[in-house]
């Protein structure tokens, strides 16, 4: 690998595979996470996202292939917490330990100043819960604590597994802004998520995997743009409208809401065709594909249960979650 490429990629994954018995959880996966970007890591449940992240972080041993972080295998990094911050779904907390104790232990292990514990508690809105034992924490509070742990060493690379899970809307908005600023400041973020709308808003690039293999690795704009534009049109006389649009060269798709979806004609042309036929229109608008559409087209599966479709309100955290970062 050239120095220029190594310098540009914070994380390099090359033909990474992981087998569990006869099952290929990850199969010859390759992608880069560039510095100065947020890369979304998407895939249906069981696609191999968490296994991939665990291999990147040296927590799981690849069956073949390799992953490098800042040019080295994670296990070879000196003082890794100062270079890579990670929050995985599998990251646990001792229920009898307070948030502050958890962070101070991580500071000791990572060779960091203990004052960092209070700094990240404050940053993530966990200051008032610092001395509370983790067994009393909600999912959202545990997410904040995991994120606080990832930020302890002021790293340049963040690897986050479903970081918005359980956060309240204010928390999700804060996280979105933080990750954008982090990347703009020269950091690199690899974030797996089921929240496609969130990924669409914060990610520059998206890596999509399905059954352990890569199905897409591109910018969000290009991935969404590949789905093209659809003109949504509705008339009291749908049959005549359909016929006129098809005659003009449009491809008409039925929609569950009864309107017609028109491809290969511009919105202006659809309006002209309807006008020429004297058709009354009740609806005429442009609709662009969403990341969810692209995800569905690439993986052939709906977003996993618990995922939030675009436009739906984020999940509310359960009890205790009153801090807003």
């Amino acid at each position, binding site marked *: 690998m050239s120095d220029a490429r190594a310098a540009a990629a914070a994380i390099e994954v090359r033909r990474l595979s992981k087998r569990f018995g006869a099952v290929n959880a990850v199969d010859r996966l390759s992608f880069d996470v560039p510095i100065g970007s947020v890369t979304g890591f998407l895939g249906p449940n069981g696609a191999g996202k968490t296994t991939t992240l*665990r291999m990147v*972080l*040296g*927590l*799981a*041993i690849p069956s073949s292939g390799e992953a490098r972080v800042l040019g080295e295998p*994670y*296990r*070879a*990094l000196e003082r*890794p*917490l100062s270079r*890579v911050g*990670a929050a*995985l779904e*599998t*990251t*646990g*907390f*001792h*229920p*009898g*330990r*307070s948030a502050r*104790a*958890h962070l*101070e*232990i*991580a500071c*000791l*292990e*990572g*060779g960091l100043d203990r004052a960092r514990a209070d700094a990240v508690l404050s940053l993530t809105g966990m200051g008032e819960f610092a001395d509370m034992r983790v067994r009393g924490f909600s999912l959202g509070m545990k997410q904040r604590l995991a994120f606080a*742990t990832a930020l302890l060493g002021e790293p340049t690379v963040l690897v986050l597994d479903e970081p918005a899970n359980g956060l309240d809307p204010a928390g999700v908005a804060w996280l979105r802004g933080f990750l954008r600023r982090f990347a703009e400041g020269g950091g690199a973020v690899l974030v797996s998520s089921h929240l496609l709308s969130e990924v669409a808003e914060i990610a520059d690039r998206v890596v999509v995997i399905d059954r352990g293999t890569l199905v897409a690795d591109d910018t969000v704009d290009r991935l969404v743009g590949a789905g093209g534009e659809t003109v949504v049109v509705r008339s009291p006389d749908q049959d005549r409208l359909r016929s006129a649009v098809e005659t003009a060269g449009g491809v008409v798709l039925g929609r569950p809401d009864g309107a017609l979806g028109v491809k290969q004609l511009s919105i202006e042309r659809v309006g002209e065709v309807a006008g020429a036929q004297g058709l009354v229109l009740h609806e005429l608008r442009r609709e662009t594909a969403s990341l969810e559409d692209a995800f569905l087209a690439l993986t052939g599966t709906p977003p996993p249960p618990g995922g939030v479709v675009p436009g739906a309100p984020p999940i509310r955290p359960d009890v205790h979650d009153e801090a807003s970062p």
Partner: protein
Amino acid sequence: MIRLVRAEVRKVRSTRLWIGLGLGGLGLTGLATLLLLSLANTDQGRLSGLHPVATAEDLRRLVFDAAGVLAFVLVLATTMATSEFRYGTAVGTYLATPSRMRVITAKALSAAPIGFVYGAVAGLVVVLLAVGWLAVKGEPVPFGSPAMTGVAQVGLQGAYGAVLAVCFGALVRSQLVAILGLLGWLFLIEPLATAVQPALTRWTPFAGVNGAFNSTTDPGVVLLGHLGALALAAAYVALLWAAAVWAERRRDA
């Protein structure tokens, strides 16, 4: 390595388990001490081989026999390793320190002083209770350096047990299996095996290694000498440490 050892000690101090196990161990030690002292002057006690505490050497022996904290040390040290897997905190530990060897070494090095303190405090409790008991009875108090040697011996036994247990916990990972395995060995398998075949005793990880700290009260058993038993203890620790490091390097966290 020092900061990793400090982190491991902090992990133990940050939960309440060490307090509960410490109080349990000291409570058992107190009961055992009072029981042995009260039985020592009876016919039944004499038949059981108990001696009244008349000399400093008797007091040292009482310390070693009554300090019943080893099982509690084994449980605490085992959880130092197994709770990392039970609660998933091993992920954070290995993210901070990817070297499995350094993590397990730090756990072993931190378990040793914790085990020593448990053992030594239990030994001191025995000495204090015995001194108080004899003073109340109006009998001479044979306090001297052998008693303190006994306290140090019990401390060393605790340190050895803790290191052994933390390595075994890292090897096994399952908290339940590791604790039941160690206690089962200590209270069931080793006593049964050595009862059937006394010649085995000198090679066992608990009774055999006692040769390094004390001599057996059973005249039919000949333990290794101090140096031999110390070498045996070191061999058990090295074996379990190496096995735990070898296994952890090949397993996913």
